[in-house]
């Protein structure tokens, strides 16, 4: 796998893992790389979107209003599995697209929003959203970074849910397992075998790899070859 940006961001995410929660680390790293004033992390389980963690009172308020109104870049990013750019809450195009949210945001002095979905294939896990008090158009490199951060955050959240230790997570830094064909196929198989949602299948695969000291790809390969099945 290419070391480079993915590894850099994954390493930064684990840097002070002992002292702060994963949610706090994701939002502060997002604020740093996007040069945003405030960032939030929203996780959605099934169709209910709930703010779980990170951010400040302003971002919590903004996220919550989006969920209640069903309108806003975070909601769109999650529903459409595509990053959303709201460059200016007073802009004509933006107001056409998210009328309810733009009104609320202007009142709270929020002028720009950028939201990246945390997703893979059919899995929609949530979004990382950045807020600015002045109009802001992301540069291509900020946009790329946000997408990579969302990928890295997804892997960190899955590892967290699977109880993978910090040492193991660190030893596999930068591995782009989400884009590994075999890992995705195996998740689909496990989801059908155990009759569980695909997200849970992904977590189960990671737990199985961790508890038997193997790489995720190795376990995935054994499952596809039907040499191994996970227990219910």
């Amino acid at each position, binding site marked *: *796998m*290419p070391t*480079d*940006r*993915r590894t850099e961001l994954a390493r930064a995410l684990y840097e002070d893992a002992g002292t702060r929660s994963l949610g706090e680390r994701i939002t502060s790293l997002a604020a740093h790389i996007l040069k945003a004033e405030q960032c939030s992390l929203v996780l959605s389980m099934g169709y209910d979107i709930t703010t779980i963690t990170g951010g400040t009172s302003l971002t919590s308020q903004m996220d919550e209003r989006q969920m209640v109104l069903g309108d806003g870049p975070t909601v769109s990013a999650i529903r459409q*599995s*595509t*990053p959303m750019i709201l460059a200016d809450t007073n802009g004509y195009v933006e107001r056409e697209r998210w009328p309810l949210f733009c009104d609320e945001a202007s009142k709270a002095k929020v002028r720009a929003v950028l939201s990246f979905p945390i*997703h*893979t*294939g*059919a*899995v929609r896990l949530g979004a990382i959203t950045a807020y600015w008090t002045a109009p802001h158009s992301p540069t*291509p490199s900020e*946009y*790329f970074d946000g*997408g*990579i951060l969302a990928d890295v955050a997804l892997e960190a959240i899955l590892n967290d849910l699977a109880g993978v230790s910090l040492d193991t997570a660190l030893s596999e830094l930068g591995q*782009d397992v*989400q*884009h*590994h*064909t*075999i890992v*995705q*196929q*195996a*998740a*689909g*198989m*496990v*989801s*059908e*075998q155990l009759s569980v*949602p*695909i997200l849970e299948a992904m977590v189960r695969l990671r737990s199985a790899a961790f508890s038997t000291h193997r790489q995720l790809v190795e376990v995935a*390969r054994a499952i*596809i*070859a039907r040499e191994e099945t996970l227990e219910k």
Partner: protein
Amino acid sequence: MATPEQRLPVDQHTGQADLVSTLVDIGQMATHGASIVNVFSVLAAQCVQLLPVSAAGILLVDENSALHVIGSSSHAAKLLDLFQVQNDEGPCRDCCKSKQMISSEDIASDTRWPNFSPLATAESFVAVYALPLEAQGVVVGALNLFSQTPLTPTQVLTAQSLADAATLAFLQADMQQDRLLIARKLRTAVEGRNAIEQAKGVLSERHGIAMMEAFWKLRDASIEHDMDIVELAKAVVNREVEV
């Protein structure tokens, strides 16, 4: 990109009619809004049909220079590994970097790729070609061909013509658009692929069939339901549609 003059002569081993009909198919699929993942999967399958190659794969390169398998002529795990390993080294990686065709007509004695070559040789592949998927100076990925005998220059040109057609389909009206839009498209294509792989896993388990069969089942169902293959894949994984 092959120039129009280069593209014309198709040798007698490659039925010109077949090539033309494939080019037309690719063009039609694109204008009918078929998922790009579907277009690239057909391209890989057609390369194996039209040319004396044993396996073909399409890899797209993202903004982080990582390569993603988007379509392949076979879904055997070993072959997929052969594409995946090229994130570290191999002809596709070199091709995307140099924006030129990279080939080896004797992989076993080629010293450029110490990890890739043994894997390819173990699968009895003798020659490998990585052709750039390029339009207007932007390389979006590479077409990877494996064969048991070296290809003729004309056959390589045929492959490049197919690659050009698929790239044009991918970029369609976006020829003048910027890096950001192309990056968005690449990301969407890669995510679409992930959904298809997940759905293949579900269907393979449900019906006790191989991954390649699961792909064709998904493709047939997408035609039957008149649904984009990626949307259908997501619906299958989330148990919203029964296939």
